[in-house]
């Protein structure tokens, strides 16, 4: 069974022919397109390491069939920086030690970017923790993660306000 698929990944349009309908977005990115920044943790939607943006929304790529997402616009951790410049959420994770081993970090950062776009958390750390609860960190870097997301959100809001002023 061959399934033709057209995806925009990090701004680049890709025409893909799937030979197996079982391929998830996660396996497509990692095993077939060499985009290994997105991590496979549990592969069952429990850890959030595989978080990506699909049409602007954060989802677990391990529980998404590639075949079902024909036409989608996908952003992975490889696509958030601009040239040599880090995304504000990436920079804030470094500034606040938002990781130890780093395995969950791409998923945390993608989830943080998605969360900021959703605009539901405000500047309340408790809400940020609630909104980020789909991303587990076995090293327990949660305090740094929360601080990083809060700071990035505040920087991004300030930049946006400057631009619209």
């Amino acid at each position: 069974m061959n399934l033709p698929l057209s995806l925009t990944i990090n701004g680049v349009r890709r025409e893909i022919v799937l030979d197996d309908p079982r391929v998830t977005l996660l396996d497509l990115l990692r095993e077939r397109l060499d985009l290994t920044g997105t991590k496979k943790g549990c592969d069952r939607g429990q850890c959030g390491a595989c978080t990506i943006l699909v049409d602007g929304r954060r989802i677990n790529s391990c529980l998404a069939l590639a075949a079902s997402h024909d036409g989608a616009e996908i952003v992975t951790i490889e696509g958030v920086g601009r040239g040599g410049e880090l995304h504000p959420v990436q920079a804030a994770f470094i500034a606040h030690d938002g990781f130890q081993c780093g395995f969950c970090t791409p998923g945390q950062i993608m989830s943080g970017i998605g969360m900021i776009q959703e605009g539901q958390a405000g500047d309340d750390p408790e809400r940020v923790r609630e909104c980020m609860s789909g991303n587990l960190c076995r090293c327990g870097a949660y305090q740094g993660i929360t601080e990083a997301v809060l700071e990035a959100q505040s920087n991004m809001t300030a930049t946006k306000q400057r631009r619209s002023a």
Partner: protein
Amino acid sequence: MMNFDYVRPASVADAIAAGSEKGASYLASGTNLLDLMKGGVSRPSRLVDVTRLPGLDRIEHLPDGSLRIGALVRNADLAHDTEFARSYPAVAEALLSGASAQLRNAATVGGNLMQRTRCAYFYDAGSACNRRWPGAGCDALKGENRLHAVLGWSEGCIATHPSDFCVPLVAFDAVVEIEGKGGRRELPLEALHRLPGDAPERETALERGDLIVALRLPAEAKDFAGHARYIKVRERTSYAFAVVSAAAGLRIEDGKIREARLALGGVAAKPWRARDAEQVLAGAAPDVACYREAARAALADAKPSGDNAFKIELAQRIVVRALTLLPQVRRIAFPRCPALPSRPLQERNA
């Protein structure tokens, strides 16, 4: 994962034709189904992808005051619809207390209704499970069963229904619209999920090929907006299924409870409407003594199915807690920590 045929029909009629074939399963976002397929629990030979079916992703206000929610509306979109959260605060709170933000962004209304139990023995293909394999027996009966059912269970199955969303929906008389080979029909949500009895493998009232196309909340559900909550006890603060939960709504007039709605989650194989408790509350003054009596009535028929007698007491306390918190309800768009029993609601920052 077993291999399957993948089809993506363009119309509801085509979907039903494809979904009526033996071994076919409908695929919405797949947040539950793909997980089950990876574990070898579900083994469909064909997936009928319904995500592109036209017209099923709308929220419509009908002339009779009811609200029609298309089966493909995403959980997050529904919960964050400000008007929805204002009119049905307990339903929005239940949605926001379920799963994680990533899963809520993907998961659909129809898929949530079709969610399977989270019983670990159902998920473990190496365990005996009458739901998965009729007649195989139930390893949960003598296993780790502290989270299992205390109401409506049978010797054949003691699993619980995992949905948060369905609990307030049952309390507020939601109706399911179904398209099937025989055309369109409706079913009260309360009648969609079945208790296990001697056929635990028959989880819902749906027939082969039936497709849920919409969910309807009747106009009266809005009458409870001023006093409605969903409260949920979890083993961690966020991103966990309910140990027990309660959806409660009161209509209070002249200091008396005019009408009450109550449903429990995590206690049975279906969202559990507690009508006896509603009777106790109706006409009474809203005070703790009356709430306690209602809680006793709600759990009067409960019995442990294993190491879970604590859930009977816990469920009663959660009913009292939910009812006690009701007068504190203010209209909200986004609860700070949805459904936590220890936190009153706070209004969203302006």
